[in-house]
């Protein structure tokens, strides 16, 4: 479009009709502005892991393109929690787990819609990710926690409780290995040769995300095909509204650059889309902070050791450690009982002992998302609940802590009595993850919609690829998804030879 403006303005309309840049453009071998062994689009978990394995496989001239000024997309702003069975750290903590158990959990959360081979690949290769990260200098906390829907504690947390704790060491490791990083460069289309193999990309250089201005349009050749690792599109209001209208009003947790440009480019070259209308809602999200910040991190602990209450009834309404879809849907039912004037936000709360363990608590409390109540009466007043019923709900929960069966069947790894002071957080689901994407093979090859066979030279990994998690994914599985399939994409690309 911009190219068209340029051509129209500078050369007149006739020239503009012979557009070199369109989604289906056939690239001429001689017209490249630059050439690389491998181009990877996106600098998050998937892109970094692809560069890691491509470099290990011996590729030299590797370029990672990033359209934003900042590096790492959602991967840098995320919690960095990674659920990996069978790591040395998990074994050290004496936790019994297996890839098979994780697959079972993922399929349950995904409502059986998971692509079995992808799901299996993620679970069985997850432990290799741990080794890769340690090799890149990533540090993890010396503990393993359990997230909702997981039947074993298998969540590893970076030492600084942020995805940055993974992205930054990997980025620096790769720079040391000679991998080139170029930001403010937006890939606008995938270019292919006359045999329909992907051979490079068209880019806008010095791209400014805010103004959408750029300095130049160029074409880059990539000898080993192109790895697309551009993540989700949660902030693309129009694309979300068009694919899933009822979620259009929800706040999204994603970074501003999570827009749909690249999924559109993938579709334009004939990639097979799957589940593009499926989105995950985050059940730990709060109306009292932006996106998913410290309060969401805190919520995971409050869910695990405390309880969640429907203000209207004063009672628990869900297994606080169920999978995300189950919890988000239960919360939406609670929310729907309220009105704009009198909202009915469900809330979760826990005892002080729990807050001592919870990453995110300090920030969330300081910033006002988490509230302290010194008595049941105060807690009831703060959330507009009947004090007597709330008291009863707390007493009921404390009996479960003592060993009585829980009607909601929540797994209890740590038994903590609920007693004042309480720390509480209001809940309201936010749009968190794009379940859908392009279809890939277990080798991270993108599948062609017309043939259901791989498109030559096109690889995708991470959130932009669909299927692994089915209808909904478990917490701490997206980081691992990007890292596992990123590694695979880099390897597959290294083995791929154009024109072979």
């Amino acid at each position, binding site marked *: 479009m911009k190219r068209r403006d340029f051509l129209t303005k500078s050369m007149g309309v006739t020239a503009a009709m012979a557009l070199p840049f369109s989604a289906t453009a056939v690239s001429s071998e001689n017209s490249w502005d630059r050439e690389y062994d491998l181009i990877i689009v996106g600098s998050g978990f998937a892109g970094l892991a692809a560069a890691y394995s491509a470099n290990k496989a011996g590729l030299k001239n590797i370029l990672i393109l990033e359209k934003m000024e900042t590096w*790492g997309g959602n991967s840098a702003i995320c919690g960095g929690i990674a659920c990996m069975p069978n790591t040395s750290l998990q074994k050290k903590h004496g936790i019994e787990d297996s890839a098979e158990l994780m697959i079972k959990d993922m399929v349950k959360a995904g409502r059986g819609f998971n692509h079995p081979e992808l799901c299996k690949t993620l679970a069985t290769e997850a432990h290799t990710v741990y080794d890769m990260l340690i090799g890149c200098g990533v540090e993890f906390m010396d503990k393993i926690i359990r997230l909702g829907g997981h039947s074993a504690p298998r969540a590893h947390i970076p030492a600084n409780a942020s995805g940055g704790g993974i992205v930054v060491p990997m980025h620096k490791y790769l720079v040391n290995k000679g991998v080139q990083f170029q930001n403010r460069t937006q890939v606008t289309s995938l270019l292919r040769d006359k045999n329909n193999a992907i051979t490079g990309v068209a880019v806008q250089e010095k791209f400014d995300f805010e103004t*959408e*201005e*750029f300095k130049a349009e160029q074409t880059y050749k990539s000898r080993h095909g192109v790895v697309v690792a551009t993540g989700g599109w949660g902030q693309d209001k129009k694309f979300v509204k068009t694919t899933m209208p009822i979620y259009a009003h929800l706040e999204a947790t994603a970074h501003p650059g999570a827009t749909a440009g690249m999924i559109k480019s993938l579709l334009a070259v004939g990639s097979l889309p799957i589940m593009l209308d499926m989105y995950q809602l985050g059940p730990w999200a709060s109306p009292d902070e932006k996106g998913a910040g410290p309060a969401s991190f805190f919520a995971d602990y409050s869910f695990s050791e405390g309880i969640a209450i429907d203000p209207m009834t004063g009672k628990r309404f869900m297994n606080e450690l169920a999978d995300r879809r189950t919890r988000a849907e239960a919360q939406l039912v609670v929310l729907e009982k309220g009105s704009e004037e009198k909202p009915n936000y469900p809330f979760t709360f826990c005892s002080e002992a729990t807050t001592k363990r919870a990453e995110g608590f300090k920030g969330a409390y300081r910033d*006002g998302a988490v509230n302290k109540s010194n008595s049941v009466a105060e807690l009831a007043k703060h959330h507009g609940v009947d004090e007597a019923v709330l008291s009863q709900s707390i007493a009921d929960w404390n009996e479960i802590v003592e060993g009585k069966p829980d009607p909601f069947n929540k797994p209890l790894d740590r038994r903590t009595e609920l007693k004042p002071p309480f720390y509480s957080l209001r809940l309201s689901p936010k749009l968190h993850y794009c379940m859908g994407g392009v279809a890939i093979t277990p080798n991270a090859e993108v599948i062609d919609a017309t043939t259901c066979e791989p498109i030559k030279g096109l690889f995708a990994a991470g959130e932009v690829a669909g299927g692994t998690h089915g209808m909904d994914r478990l917490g701490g599985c997206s980081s691992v998804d990007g890292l596992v399939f990123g590694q695979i994409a880099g390897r597959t690309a290294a083995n791929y030879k154009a024109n072979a």
Partner: protein
Amino acid sequence: MKTSFAVAVIATLLSCSALAAKPTIKQHHIDALGDDMNCRTCHTTKGAFERPSDQACIDCHGGMHDIPTQPNRFDKNPHNSHHYEDLLECMVCHSEHQPSKDICSDCHKVEFNNLK
């Protein structure tokens, strides 16, 4: 709106012409450098004007580790943040010809009284 290359070129030409208002320089730079400060102090590329590279800032100020953020109410430390450590370019937050804008506030509550 997206702007084409041609439009951008015209805009650049205009902004460099004598008619266009001279871009403002921040007081702390004027205080420190006075007449020694000119466009090329920061825009170090030969030929066409480019957005300054990090190096132009670092040559005078040192890297992020040399410039710790002052203690603040929300315990934020953008020069050594959990998300980016020292990976980002200075220009992501700092501007010379317009107010600087911390990217922390895209997601967090922050307060930097000394953001230059």
